[in-house]
């Protein structure tokens, strides 16, 4: 009997060992390392030198522009995504013909799993000098600047993250009990009040999942502001690349990275709280 339990535990440990090692060496330890770095000093030749100071955190306002751009464009971008995504999810879940539903859903998912770099590059092409501005010049509208503007970054964000927003809203709308809609109509509710009181309300968990997922990914975004913002619309991700790979100020970069992770955690917790309070339901798990 004892031998059996020992064998059971040994096998369990054996199965979990590689993944545990990976999580510890490449997630937990690195995170502890940047936490330690964030209270250190920049070595004269770049990199890190041991110290205990909060100077790096006090210096965060030096990158205020990056924080400001991220903190404005991430929620605005997520909101813009939501406004475009909701009608699409609604149509797919409740109105699309049954046999088209899965095909249309696949068409939504495919861009999400294809390279964000390539898809963002496509917009550089369209918004750049030889794209839309060249077409506009043909009809006499000269010197339109589209690329390297906050608007271009916003467009890139909506384009890049739209599928990720549609998916969870679709899932929560698809689970919705259609008898509730009939009941609401039978009780004399107008289509609008049925939508607001039943459909929208019951899809809020999906909305919150989509919104917080997109928000969190946008907080760490690097490619879209770089390619479509042209160094004018800096995000926190851009500041991190600059601090670690160019100016080699590792302690300051670490302080920014820690702050970024804390902000992400706050966003996740807030989203969870809000969706629990609003709908009494838990968020939709995507995986």
């Amino acid at each position, binding site marked *: 009997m004892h031998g059996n339990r020992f064998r059971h535990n040994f096998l369990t440990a054996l*199965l979990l060992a590689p*993944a545990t090692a990976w999580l510890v060496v490449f*997630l937990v330890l690195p995170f502890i390392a940047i936490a330690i770095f964030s209270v250190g000093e920049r070595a004269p030749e770049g990199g890190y030198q041991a110290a205990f100071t909060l100077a790096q955190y006090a210096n965060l306002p030096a990158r205020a522009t990056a924080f400001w751009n991220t903190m404005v464009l991430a929620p605005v971008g997520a909101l813009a995504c939501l406004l475009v995504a909701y009608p699409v999810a609604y149509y797919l879940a409740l109105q699309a013909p049954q046999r088209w539903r899965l095909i249309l859903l696949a068409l939504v998912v495919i*861009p999400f799993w*294809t390279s964000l*770099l390539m898809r963002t590059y*496509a917009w550089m092409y369209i918004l750049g000098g030889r794209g839309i501005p060249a077409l506009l010049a043909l009809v006499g509208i000269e010197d339109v600047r589209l690329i390297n503007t906050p608007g271009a970054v916003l467009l890139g964000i909506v384009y890049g993250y*739209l599928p990720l927003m549609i998916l969870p809203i679709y899932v929560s709308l698809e689970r919705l009990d259609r008898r509730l809609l009939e009941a609401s109509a039978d009780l004399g509710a107008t289509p609008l009040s049925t939508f607001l009181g039943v459909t929208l309300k019951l899809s809020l968990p999906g909305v919150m999942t989509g919104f917080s997922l997109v928000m969190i990914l946008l907080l760490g975004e690097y490619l879209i502001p770089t390619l479509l913002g042209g160094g004018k619309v800096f995000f926190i991700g851009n500041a991190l690349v600059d601090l670690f790979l160019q100016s080699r100020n590792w302690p300051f970069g670490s302080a920014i990275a820690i702050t970024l992770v804390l902000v992400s955690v706050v966003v996740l917790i807030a989203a969870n709280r809000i969706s629990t309070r609003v709908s009494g339901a838990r968020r939709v798990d995507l995986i």
Partner: protein
Amino acid sequence: MRAFVIAVFAFLYLPIALVVLFSFNAGHHASEFTGFSVQWYGKALSNPFLVEALKNSLFIATTSALLAAVFGTAAALGLARVGVRTRAVFDALLGAAIVVPGVVIGISTLVALVQLFGVVNPFLASIWPDDQPPKLSLGYGSIIAAHGLFSMALVTMIVGTRLGSLDRNLVEASSDLYATPLTTFRSIVLPQIMPAVVAGFLLAFTFSFDDFIIAFFVAGAQTTLPIYVFASIRRGVTPEINAIATIVLVASVLLVVLAQWQLRQRKPSN
């Protein structure tokens, strides 16, 4: 509503379609299509730097996805055997591996590895018999390891979900019939979770192949395809990139379709 949905689909696919169209453009310019040609594909595939980057990406994606599929599946099987508390800790870590922004994963891995090398390399030099001790550095290994983190978490979750819906009666029946645990695993459990494992592998491969930001930090002197493409985009848009983009897009679409198809495979017992 329908018109709006059609417009959104056009918005999703028009840019991709344009890139594909102009990858076949005979001319240099993006604003006019001057005729059909595959010359840019030829130019792309005869560019030695590009081919090198492509090979690196294929090698890295295959290795890290294989690693993730094997260890992630093992972890999912192990997690089905542990108590609630251990499970909660693991789920939190796996969630963190997926939610923490790639840019943070990239820098923290870079920082930790550089520190580790700072300790290990002098030690290796001190115990090595001759003047040429092996030196650990950033490169294939660090990219594979960093990609493996996210991928393993993904595989563990996908396979774990599948295990949750596994028919326990079959497992019990199998052991009632005196099958050894190994036989039960091979003939009952493995066939049922295999589609999830394959789907996890394909998604892990796609993620690794497409990842730019993590590799950007931990690649050292190595180049992957996204890093090469990023660098050439910054040098200026060339039709050659349209050809590479098209190849990569088609490959990712095929892999994702294959992964979805695997996930939807019916259980063999049905």
